[in-house]
């Protein structure tokens, strides 16, 4: 599989690419030649700004955030890069799923390859090398607002530059990044040059990575639901009111979400950005780290899941009715899953709390919106596993499993097990078979 090469250029990365690249289905990922020369060109400008009489350029020869007024020399800046990710690397709770953190390296490499961030192509190569080796930064799940995922992305910067305290997941093991790199014959350390810490940390790339997997999981779950419903024999088919309206509405609304997430893969989200002017480049400050639309669409995704859950619950209720109340235990658990999705529908994006001494006085909470969508998808997966177990039980009771064997030939569960256990087994089966990615590491 490794002989197919896939190149990123900052303009064409899709959800599908990221999922496939993560599975190794696209082979080694590399930097497109044109993108490389764009990066080289803008990087050459940074060198000019490190001279003695250069103007003050935020993040190149100054501190960050509220310390933006502190001027740093190039030498100080290099030393500073070795520590500045640390106080930014906040995080508590469980570890994020390594599939997600690893994907964030690819997404970020793509963002940087647009050439507006002024980093060396070598930095992008380094990120891709780590990605290609299947190494994932170890990052705890809580601590980001989504207005820049500074905490998670500082962890990424620690790993990329091989800082001593950086940790990674590799083949299911958690270990020090430096040890992992050495074991694989990679450079243990990769000193970051001026602007390269900021260019990695500023922006909402971890939210984006979570959103990618939320889209992936949603696509799979929509498919799973169809497949499970199709297992019912014709004589036991159930017609639910407004099914077509709901499916059409969800499909169209999800189309908006997918478009947005794909668009956001190919934007520049750090600060300042370098733009070509007559005699070189100009650095311009903005706030492209705000990924407003992603937060909104992740909130929308949870709403869609809630309405789908509502529909699936009705389906289970109707099955139970038709079977004379034999599915009560399944209904009990299913309705709890629906309740969970409903509570998760409270939008994260409608809130904002000022942070950082009022400098960051509006935050998106897009990170929370994306996390919440993943949790809702997990609950919906669980709900579908109850629907699945209901259908299996019914068809088994009628001694009919031809469709089941046809659609899920590899399914190996004890169909006479208690409902809850059957559902747990099916939940696991669906997760594996359809590559459903959970939010956190387990």
């Amino acid at each position, binding site marked *: 599989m490794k002989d197919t090469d896939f190149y990123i250029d900052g303009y064409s990365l899709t959800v599908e690419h990221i999922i496939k690249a993560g599975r190794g289905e696209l082979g080694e990922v590399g930097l497109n030649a044109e993108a490389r020369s764009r990066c080289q060109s803008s990087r050459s400008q940074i060198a000019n700004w490190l001279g003695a009489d250069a103007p003050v350029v935020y993040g190149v020869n100054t501190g960050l955030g509220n310390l933006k007024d502190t001027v740093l020399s190039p030498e100080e800046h290099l030393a500073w890069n070795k520590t500045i990710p640390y106080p930014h690397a906040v995080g508590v709770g469980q570890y994020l799923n390594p599939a997600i953190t690893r994907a964030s390296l690819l997404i970020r490499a793509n963002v940087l390859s647009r050439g507006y961030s002024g980093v060396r192509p070598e930095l992008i190569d380094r990120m891709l090398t780590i990605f290609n080796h299947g190494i994932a930064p170890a990052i705890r799940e809580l601590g980001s607002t989504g207005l820049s995922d500074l905490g998670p992305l500082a962890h990424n910067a620690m790993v990329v530059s091989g800082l001593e305290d950086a940790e990674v997941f590799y083949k299911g093991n958690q270990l020090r990044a430096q040890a992992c790199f050495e074991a694989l014959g990679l450079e243990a350390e990769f000193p970051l040059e001026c602007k390269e810490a900021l260019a990695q940390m500023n922006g909402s790339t971890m939210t984006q990575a979570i959103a990618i997997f939320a889209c992936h999981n949603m696509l799979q779950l929509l498919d799973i639901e169809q497949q499970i419903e199709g297992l019912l024999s014709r004589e036991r088919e159930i017609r639910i009111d407004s099914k077509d309206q709901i499916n059409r509405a969800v499909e169209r609304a999800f189309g908006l979400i997918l478009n947005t997430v794909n668009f956001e893969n190919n934007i520049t989200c750090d600060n300042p950005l370098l733009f070509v002017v007559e005699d070189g480049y100009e650095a311009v*400050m903005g706030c*492209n780290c705000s990924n407003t*639309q992603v937060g909104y669409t992740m909130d929308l995704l949870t*709403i869609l899941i*809630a*309405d789908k859950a509502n529909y699936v619950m009705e389906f289970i209720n109707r099955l139970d009715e038709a079977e004379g109340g034999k599915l009560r235990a399944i209904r009990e658990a299913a309705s709890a899953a629906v309740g969970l999705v409903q509570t998760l529908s409270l939008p994260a994006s409608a809130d*904002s709390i000022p942070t950082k001494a009022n400098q960051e*006085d509006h935050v998106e909470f897009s990170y929370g919106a994306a996390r919440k969508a993943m949790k809702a998808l997990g609950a919906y997966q669980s709900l579908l596993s109850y629907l699945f177990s209901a259908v299996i039980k019914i068809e088994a009771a009628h001694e009919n499993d031809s469709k089941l064997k046809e659609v899920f030939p590899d399914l190996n569960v004890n169909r006479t097990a208690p409902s809850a256990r059957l559902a747990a087994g099916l939940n696991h089966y669906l997760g594996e078979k359809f590559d459903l990615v959970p939010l956190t590491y387990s």
Partner: protein
Amino acid sequence: MSTPLTINGSSLKMEDMNAVLAGEQITVNLVKPLHHNSKFSFQYEPEQSPFSGPQESLLDSLKDYVRYDGELLPAETGLLSLYLLLNHAVKYDDALSDEWVDRVLFFVNHRIEPCLHQANRTELSAMSELFLILHGEEELVCRYQGQLITVGDLFRETGLSKLSCTKQDTAFITSLCCVSTAMAVYTVSEAARLTKTADICVAMQLEAIRGETGAFDSRLHELGRPYTSQIEVADNVRRLISGSEFTTERGREAFGGDNGPRCQDAISIRAVPQTHGGVRDTVRWLKEQLDNEINAIPDQSNPLLGYLLDLLIIGLIDLGNISERRSFRLLDSKLSYGLPMNLVGENPGFNHGFPVIQASAAGILGEMKLLAIPNSAFAKYDPITKKYRCATFASSIKVLNAVALLNKILGIEMYMAAQGMDLAKAKLADFAFGAGSSEALRTFRNFVQTVKVNRFASPDMVAADKVVSEGVVLNAVENAIGQLR
């Protein structure tokens, strides 16, 4: 009088709907589509309709669903509903009897706007009320020639007589979701006014705090993160402050509120293209779907509009979030780069300024956030009828509330930013404001004066609310510098 609007079931445009909203009298030329579906012509299915009793008690059955009390929905939405009803009816043979089609045509061609009651909180109730108005239920209300009028008086004035209702007509009309679709169309127009107004507030704010304009540089948006909506907002703000001397390095130096270069303003200022842009996208997504939905009114329910209305409400709340934070910055001399504490005009200590006015924006915002819970996530199936209870109608009512609250929050920001502009100008009398922001200030001052001494706050706030909700400043600014995007 514009050219007649052809309604054939498939070519209605959002521009037509907006023209109706803008008050244009648009007569309708009804054209049956060439390939209309007689095969699928609407069939009255008694078991599907709640109105399955005997013919003579139909009216009573309808009235069971309709409240006649309380607040009215915007009259335009009743009128839009009628255009949508015609656009749907024309697709089916015999769905609606000729006399009913003629009645709807009479209403739209005479711009008679049915005023529906907000208390009718389901599509079925609202469509039933619409039906009763068309029929001639005397106590119900319309707007005609700018005045509210009872249907009884209206019919006497225009010579209309009561229509008889058949089961077929009743079932057809009450099965559609024209009202929530009309409300969604209305919402798109209101939200467009609000997003533009918010851009104006930002321009005024930039003048007051002598803001750094780099964050609105077109390259950041066109090259960096090229969402159309984001590009539009940055463009609006640049046009509004075009020619401003306050928002320059020279202005900042002359005012003396900064220690060294500003580098960048706080997020509530510099993330405006991104955040306002995101809000605009929630509006655009709804609008784009409506382009299709107004020609495809589905029977019974349209969950898609509900999802997008719920999302739009989230966007409007976020616009409230960022506006409230900008107002907050004006209170503190450090955050406003040297404006007087609490924007006090003169004699601080004796005069109190704006802290409580600003706090009220926070209070209103808190109220607004309560609207964020998405109705669509709580749609359910009726345990008895097994019918899907779509939440779209509830969301379409709720969004009106969100719009009303956001008017007030933006009104407060405009009120405070105008005060900030006057105070900045007092210090730098020779400096000029931008083309749009100066017009905004000039117009706003026709309604609310600069606050110099303690005075009753509420009337000013009410006036500011009105200036925003009626688009007074927006219209003046657009007259001065051209349409905002």
